[in-house]
């Protein structure tokens, strides 16, 4: 089975050959892979090198913690990949960014207005939660679309606050 696996934006071509062998970018490696009972923990030994990994579903991807560093990963098989390629555009790059509340809290102030142009990194609004005021910033350049909250609103986690178009 062939997969295209993306780690922190970098693509690897990984093929599962059999229980003990995979190839990565054409290079065959012998793997000893174990799932540790009752834990989200995996152990991989390659060429004697031992790697312990915590693997769990993140919000949007599979997160892999190896030697104290977290890797964001996405694994697609060839079929999925072809389908996505056929659709022409990468959904992630197009469309509208919806700013959602990362946690429940209180809207302290909204720093932008509908129709205003913003740059990546501009503060969009301030959400108070856990006794802290947290600045929510724009992840990209754009224009502010609909603002769905006002100052003083209590918001739930994942509630839509505004959009950047």
């Amino acid at each position, binding site marked *: 089975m062939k997969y295209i696996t993306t780690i922190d934006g970098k693509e690897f071509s990984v093929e599962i050959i059999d229980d003990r062998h995979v190839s990565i970018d054409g290079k065959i490696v012998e793997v000893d892979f174990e799932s540790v009972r009752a834990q989200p923990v995996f152990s991989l030994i*390659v060429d004697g090198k031992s790697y312990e990994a915590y693997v769990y579903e993140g919000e949007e991807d599979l997160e892999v913690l*190896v030697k104290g560093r977290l890797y964001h990963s996405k694994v697609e098989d060839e079929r999925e990949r072809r389908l996505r390629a056929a659709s022409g555009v990468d959904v992630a790059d197009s469309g509208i960014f919806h700013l959602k509340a*990362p946690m429940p809290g209180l809207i302290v102030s909204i720093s932008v207005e509908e129709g205003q142009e913003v740059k990546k990194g501009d503060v969009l609004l301030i959400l108070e939660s856990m006794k802290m005021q947290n600045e929510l910033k724009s992840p990209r350049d754009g224009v502010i679309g609909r603002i769905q909250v006002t100052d003083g609103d209590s918001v739930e986690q994942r509630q839509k606050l505004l959009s950047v178009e």
Partner: protein
Amino acid sequence: MFNKVLIANRGEIAVRILRACRELGIQTVAVYSEVDRQAMHVRYATEAYLLGPAPSNESYLKGEKIIEIALKSGAGAIHPGYGFLAERADFAQAVEDAGLEFIGPKPYAIGSMGDKAIARETMMKAGVPVVPGTGGTDNLSDEELLELAPGVGFPLLIKATAGGGGKGMREVKNIEEMPTLLQSARREANASFGNDNIYLEKMILGARHVEIQILADKFGNVIHLNERECSLQRRHQKLLEEAPSAFVDDDLRQRMGDVAVKAAEAVDYESAGTIECLVDADKNFYFLEMNTRLQVEHPVTELVMGVDIVKEQIRIARGRKLSFAQEDIKINGAAIECRINAEDPHNSFMPSTGLISHAVIPTGPGIRVDTGVYAGSEITPYYDSMISKLIVWGETRAQAILRMRRALEEYKVVGVRTNIPFHQAMMDSHPFMGGQFHTRFVEEEFSMEHIAEGKETFPEVAAIIATLVQHEETERAAHVVRRNARDTSNWKWLSRWERLSK
């Protein structure tokens, strides 16, 4: 002498105090808000009583109700921990009036030291240098503060008089941005302490935050337990503390210790307290404030001095003399504390809420973890984001750093983001290793990304592991369809997948 203590707090500090009580053979009473029903402090205590809904002002700030519970349960004393009611003189007074022992200083000391403005006055009178700022102990209006600001000079800090922990604190670069910041500081101060009084203080740039731990009994004996280095802060929140400070020499240590003892004596201090100072590059120090309570970072002092500060607080409240004299206090090795917060260091330290589905706590030599959470804990947005404290001891500071590195790598929390990667980067930072930093180091000079650059990474290993995990999941799906053909190896895929999809 009391044999039952009510702990008016939650989280790791409630557990810390419960443990001290248990080790002293003292019965305990926990209080809790609705969202904390399953919390560790509730399960650990001998007794537990509901306070009210999650918001602090409906639960952990309800002093009257807490006193009522203490009386009903037969507790003879109340330990306030830190935060919440810990520095409220009115609460301490009410506790005393109810015939209970308040495990902390007398209301008078809380009042005169807990109010940051009065404390500055008191210290100035005692000849202790203070950071320049708005004098006077009146509650100044926004108008008055705006008028006094140019005299203090920019940049300056707005601080909550009832403050602590960086709550209600704002940096002000110029007079234009000041009105907005005054408002938000008051709002945060009110939310945190139920008191919106604020004052102004000049910012001393390039300084260190060094504090002296004090212990005083009811018989006028006061000792200090040397200093803690707390310069590593972000938005005035301490992130990492050490004892001793790599910057403090024996002479400065003694000068600061003497002043700290004098400051405590000036208000007939009793119990544990901390004198916070700024120290400039020339080793001049300025009194900042006194925290009339136990502090988050007390464990680093405990590890190097061999003194259990919480137990001493309880012993003092029970009317015992101090177990130690000043000459018994010797620095042994070095200790570092990392505050483990549920926040994402890769995303502006945004607080992270959710269910901790899995946690592995580091163990082994020289490691202490003070925690109130466990696998199964829900991190809610109602309280602050600190979930535990990781403290290590080493024969030397260098060994403590190496041990902390090891411990941070062992520490695994699944379900919420934590600032562990921040601490890992700090342990790899050359200025930190060299002890070269100041209170603005984290914000102005430190970059996680920069430190990460030099480190070996394992993207190929991550790719192989991610693919194998995904592949097994796919295999499992295929096998489930052919359910009759299942064999034991499929069960293996299944259990893996179930684990992953939880």
